[in-house]
């Protein structure tokens, strides 16, 4: 059978990162093809190349056997490629019909022809089994239906190939069922679908063929019928060479952090944490492994007091901090390196110095009687810049002008200057170069030796493996298993991360 889309040796690099490295991919007419891989494997970048969001540095795209140049999304749409992004590209106050015809020429230019558009949309929706009301404003629709609008948008533009970027990430289990039904109907009608995901079970359920990507490269493409979750997990995670970190043996002390059956909702008001129980002791690093979006953000935020706990208790050194103010939690000695230094960890428009005192500016000797003590602050910041090797000309530079690595050093310097009892580090090395990564990891090990309890939340498995004393795997807001790092089995972790409970971990969860 002639392929619908064929990619040949696609390369795409960003400064410092190779996102796609000679990627080959073939999509057949009428197949559901899953693109599987960890975060940062290059799946989305590859699809953005197909959809014209990025230009590949080299390589060729063939559409129905002909080489094509796709410069912008418009070209891709003209060919018959539709993409549903993770973040929907909808205009909330406009109606479904208005969203769908947005950007298309109207048959009655310069006037809109909403009436006939509505009719057409209704017919189209009917024929694909996607019931929808075209005249309802999009903001009133639940997320699952909004996704349906995105899909209809592509179909209305006569897409033959539909790219769905992690379509299930935002859906409830019921909505996922619905979506799968619809995708199967598409397949019957001869449409091809590229389904980007990192969830093994889903991929096994829905796809005909599966392409696994890792670190920008294609590992393999195989039919779903001839593989199993275990094999996929191994291909996805790979056997990477860990950065070696010198780590003295772990001597855990008293329990510093204790979570008891903690539940919380996500921003979308869906259950994000479904009864998490966990302990972290002084002088140990507990790593939370898991694919992004399984409750890690929420877990860190409930501990820091930034998200409401709906059920359960959180204790720090025996003191109940459930739903306390962030300030009170900080004052108890809880430091937090947030996953997003740009939007949360730093005040980008503030200077390096102002950021370094961000959590201590209101206590002496940083301020007295409400006045900031400039001399002390300057000395403190110069010291921190020197000891943490923050590369900046002086402390009065806006922190946004620093490199990512140096920005993260500012965050870490600030958090460790509080001499915390507990450090929650979420994605501490995301997007950093090797040097900065190593520095940050070494600092964490040093803090551990000094008796700090550390909760490390990372989607980079090798980071969790090389730093942690114990490893907990999180999936859809639940801890799938806790094991000591020494006994950790890579395949086991890979399976748990993908939600497969085939093997329940036989670790030794330490209890108080």
């Amino acid at each position, binding site marked *: 059978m002639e392929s619908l889309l064929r990619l040949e040796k696609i390369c795409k690099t960003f400064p410092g990162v190779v996102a796609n490295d000679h990627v080959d991919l073939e999509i057949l007419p009428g197949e559901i093809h899953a693109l599987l891989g960890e975060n940062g494997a290059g799946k989305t970048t590859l699809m953005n190349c197909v959809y014209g969001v990025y230009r590949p540095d080299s390589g060729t795209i063939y559409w129905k056997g002909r080489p094509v140049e796709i410069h912008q999304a418009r070209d891709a749409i003209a060919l018959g490629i539709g993409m549903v992004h993770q973040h929907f590209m909808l205009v909330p106050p406009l109606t479904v019909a208005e969203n769908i015809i947005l950007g298309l020429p109207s048959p009655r230019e310069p006037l809109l022809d909403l009436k006939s558009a509505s009719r057409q949309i209704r017919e189209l929706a009917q024929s694909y089994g996607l019931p929808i009301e075209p005249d309802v404003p999009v903001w009133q629709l639940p997320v699952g239906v909004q996704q349906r609008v995105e899909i209809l948008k592509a179909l209305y533009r006569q897409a033959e190939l539909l790219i769905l970027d992690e379509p299930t990430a935002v859906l409830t289990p019921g909505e996922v069922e619905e979506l799968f039904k619809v995708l199967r109907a598409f397949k019957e009608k001869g449409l091809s679908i590229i389904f980007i995901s990192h969830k093994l079970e889903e991929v096994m359920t829905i796809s005909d063929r599966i392409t696994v990507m890792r670190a920008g490269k294609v590992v393999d493409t195989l039919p779903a019928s001839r593989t199993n979750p275990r094999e996929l997990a191994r291909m996805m995670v790979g056997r990477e060479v860990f950065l070696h970190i010198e780590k003295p043996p772990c001597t855990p002390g008293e329990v510093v952090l204790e979570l008891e059956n903690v539940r919380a909702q996500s921003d979308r008001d869906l259950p994000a944490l479904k009864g998490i129980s966990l302990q972290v002791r002084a002088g140990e690093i507990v790593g939370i492994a898991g694919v992004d979006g399984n409750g890690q953000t929420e877990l860190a935020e409930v501990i820091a007091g930034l998200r409401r706990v709906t059920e359960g208790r959180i204790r720090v050194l025996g003191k109940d901090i459930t739903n306390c103010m962030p300030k009170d939690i900080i004052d108890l000695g809880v430091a937090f390196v947030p996953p*997003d230094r740009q939007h949360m960890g730093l005040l*980008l428009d503030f200077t390096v110095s102002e950021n370094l005192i961000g959590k201590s500016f209101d206590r002496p000797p940083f301020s007295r009687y409400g006045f900031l003590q400039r001399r002390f602050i300057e000395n403190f910041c110069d010291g921190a810049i020197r000891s943490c090797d923050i590369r900046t000309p002086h402390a009065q530079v806006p922190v946004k002008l620093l490199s990512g690595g140096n920005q993260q050093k500012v965050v870490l310097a600030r958090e460790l200057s509080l001499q915390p009892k507990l450090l929650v580090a979420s994605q501490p090395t995301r997007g950093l170069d090797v040097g900065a990564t190593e520095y940050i990891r070494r600092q964490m090990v040093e803090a551990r030796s000094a008796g700090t309890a550390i909760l490390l939340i990372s989607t980079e498995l090798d980071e969790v493996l090389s730093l942690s004393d114990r490893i907990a795997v999180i999936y859809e807001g639940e801890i799938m298993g806790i094991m000591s790092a020494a006994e950790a089995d890579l395949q086991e972790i890979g399976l748990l991360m993908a939600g497969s409970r085939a093997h329940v971990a036989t670790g030794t969860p330490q209890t108080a």
Partner: protein
Amino acid sequence: MLRLQESTNRWEILYRRFLERSFNILIPLGAILAAFVISSALIVARGANPLSAYAALFAGAFGSSNALANTVTRMVPIIMTGLAVTYGYRSGFFNIGAEGQLFMGAMATTWMGITLTGWPAWLLIPASLLAGALAGSLWALIPGYLKAKRGFNEVLTTLLLNYITIQLFEFLIRVDHAVGLGHPFLAWIGLKDPTQPFPKSAYITEAARMPSLTSLLTWLGGTAEDPAFQRFTLAAVVAVLAAVVIYILLFKTTTGYRARAVGVNPRAAQYMGINVVRTTITTALISGALAGMAGSLEIMGFQHRVIQNFLVGAGYDGIPVALIGQLNPLGVLLSALFFGALRAGANRMQIVSGAPVSIIYVIQSLAILFAIAGTVIDLRPRRLKQAEIEEAKRLEAELALQSSPATGTDILGEEARHV
């Protein structure tokens, strides 16, 4: 990859600091200059000589003690409202309601001055000023509370409150004022002078007025013949002091740190342990107090009573004053000087040169336009610019590599999508 060249060269550091700081002054100065140059074309079109027009404008603003008094008088309220807008803006509270808060302040101060006529000056002056500040901040508390607790957009609430205030003002200056208990509440809070048929208040008592240069000289045993000296009052000193206090508050205190942090990024501020709700409310109170004091100072320093349309627009003028002042309290002083001088000198310019008064509004508007456009100009060394471009690219790469929506990374983006 280093974004910024590390430099141990002290001189280079100093040069950069100079550039970073002076740039803030250069933009508005350049904008004002450009506004004058371009407006001169209009003056020529009117058949007048721009040089003589500007000379007359200058003379009308600074040429005599009378001219100077005019300029200072016009400066005081817009310094205060400019500060109100600056403090609010820096702290993420876009106070468009300075106009209304100013009227509230003026009413409260007037009420003190026509009611507490028995109080001595040393008590009545600070009390009247405080009453104005309180009235302004209570008025700003409504939008402040709604924003902090309920997420209402303060631009809308403050703006709408302005109309309510003006109507309240129009009403109260038509209700006869009665002093003493035993009167109906309405008569008690009414502001109209019962002896007059017009909608205006009685003059505030002598003890409630700001001392002037004349009274200072008399107290020192001298005499002041120049009647203009009566218009140089303590109100101007209070306004300048307020600018200095707000500068210190904003940049040297923990209160200011919290306010600016919330202004830059409320989510990060919350993460750092700052109580965003409390900070937003505090900001509204401070901003409102400044705007309220604008009304107080106008009453206590110059007009000594409220009449219809007694100071229309000074609240809104605070916005351009703050913007040209680069949202810096000390910059507000300079930009208020520019605005004040333009208005004070406008009449003389028209009489002497024939260039119409409306030219000053053209100058003013152009200056605002250029000042805003100027913030885009980048005079920094190329290396620094390069660093920002690289940073943007790196960010793009980082974003491209992230593939899940449920992370904290996109919290802002997601909120934006849901709005």
